């Protein structure tokens, strides 16, 4: 993309009217070393968007809105995704995280399933690229025995990074995320964890602008699983069959 092309499209980008693939192209262009007025054009467009927002009568949120935000913030220093979680050292951490996740999941279970289904359905419909995984996800969403697993950072169960749509009865699962940002130098990979066995690598999670989908091979789930995890890997996936950097983990539902 040239600077001229960027400037031609930047108004639509600022207004949020570009499809994810094109928006990602503009964002990638900004990472380039030299520009001819690109940031100036972006800031002007954003000023216009700010004016659009500022033309609305301001609305003060109720006091409980901030209180609810505060409740969802993890303690200082505990919210960051760990820089690196070595496989050998991660078993205990995963076990602790799982117990935390299970309890958090239990609290939310009663009112969360319908919302999760809604969100997943919309996320899956918005995806492009992997039609087979998309069909599988829609099929799982239509299945009454499907369940939803939130994949969250081991250090913070309240911060979902992805969801898995899982049917433990038929050993099928699809992972979907609209949060993870695409990286040119890394891939996201799905893992299946069972007991003390080494984690088994699954599909790569790819997609534009953080929206991505990955189908977990049924063979990985035939003997059941304890958890599904997501890791950050070099391009092409784990080079050694072990997770390089565990980003998120979630408990696998029992059939």
């Amino acid at each position, binding site marked *: 993309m040239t600077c001229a092309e960027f400037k*031609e499209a930047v*108004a639509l980008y600022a207004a949020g009217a570009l499809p994810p693939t094109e928006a990602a192209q503009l964002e990638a262009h900004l990472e380039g070393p030299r520009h001819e007025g690109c940031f100036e054009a*972006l800031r002007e467009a954003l000023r216009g968007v*700010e004016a659009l927002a*500022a033309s*609305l009568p301001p609305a003060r949120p109720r006091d409980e809105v901030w209180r609810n935000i505060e409740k969802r913030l993890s303690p200082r220093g505990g919210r960051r995704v760990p820089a690196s979680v070595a496989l050998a050292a991660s078993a205990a951490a995963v076990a602790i995280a799982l117990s935390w996740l299970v309890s958090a999941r239990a609290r939310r279970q009663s009112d969360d399933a319908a919302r999760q289904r809604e969100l997943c*359905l919309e996320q899956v419909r918005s995806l492009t690229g992997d039609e087979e995984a998309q069909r599988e996800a829609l099929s799982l969403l239509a299945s009454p025995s499907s369940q939803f697993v939130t994949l969250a950072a081991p250090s913070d169960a309240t911060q979902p990074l992805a969801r898995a749509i899982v049917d433990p009865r038929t050993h099928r699962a699809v992972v979907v995320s609209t949060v993870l940002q695409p990286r040119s130098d890394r891939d996201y990979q799905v893992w299946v964890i069972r007991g003390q066995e080494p984690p088994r690598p699954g599909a790569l999670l790819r997609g534009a602008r953080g929206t991505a989908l990955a189908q977990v091979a049924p063979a990985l789930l035939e003997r059941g699983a304890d958890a599904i995890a997501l890791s950050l890997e070099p391009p092409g996936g784990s080079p050694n069959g072990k997770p390089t950097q565990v980003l998120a983990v979630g408990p696998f539902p029992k059939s």
Partner: protein
Amino acid sequence: MYGSEAMFLWLLATAAGGRGRDDATLLRRIAAGDQGSLRTLYERAAPVALAVAVRILGSRGEAEEAVQDAFVQAWQRAETYDERRGPAVGWVTSIVRSRALDRLRARASLGRTAQAMSDAGALAGGPAQMESVEGRQRRLRVHEALCQLPEEQRASLELAYFAGLTQKEIAESTAVPIGTVKTRCRLALQKLASILEEEGS
């Protein structure tokens, strides 16, 4: 701190580029785990961000939930903020807009009837926003500038920002080529940006 006057003055300052460094510092503190800085950002941004969410969702309750989700997300992702790409209020407002549109699309995907509430009805139930005479006058001037835009420019921009339509969807719904949609949005934003600059100068 919730006064729209303060909010508007802050917007003007950021439009003039005077708060870029402050924004970067604020977001660095948030990234380091400073909840007080997040509260500062919330006080600056929440009234406008909530107004955007209410406009998108037509429901005060859902809009406040979108604001909650967005500020939690801002807390998680503060380190990704890049001041070269605009002020922090705009950044967090864009997150609020995205979360509101997620809810709107999820609602639509279930085939629910869109019960668009009137602005007045949608805003009922929350505390009134105290707005100074001067602040209200400034906001109305921006609103007036918006109304003075050619109808097709204003409609294209509002379909993009408040309805979340893509350029292709806007082109289809307004029966014009995509290039025309681009031009309309660009001209509309340039005009609105110039209003902020005039107010700030």
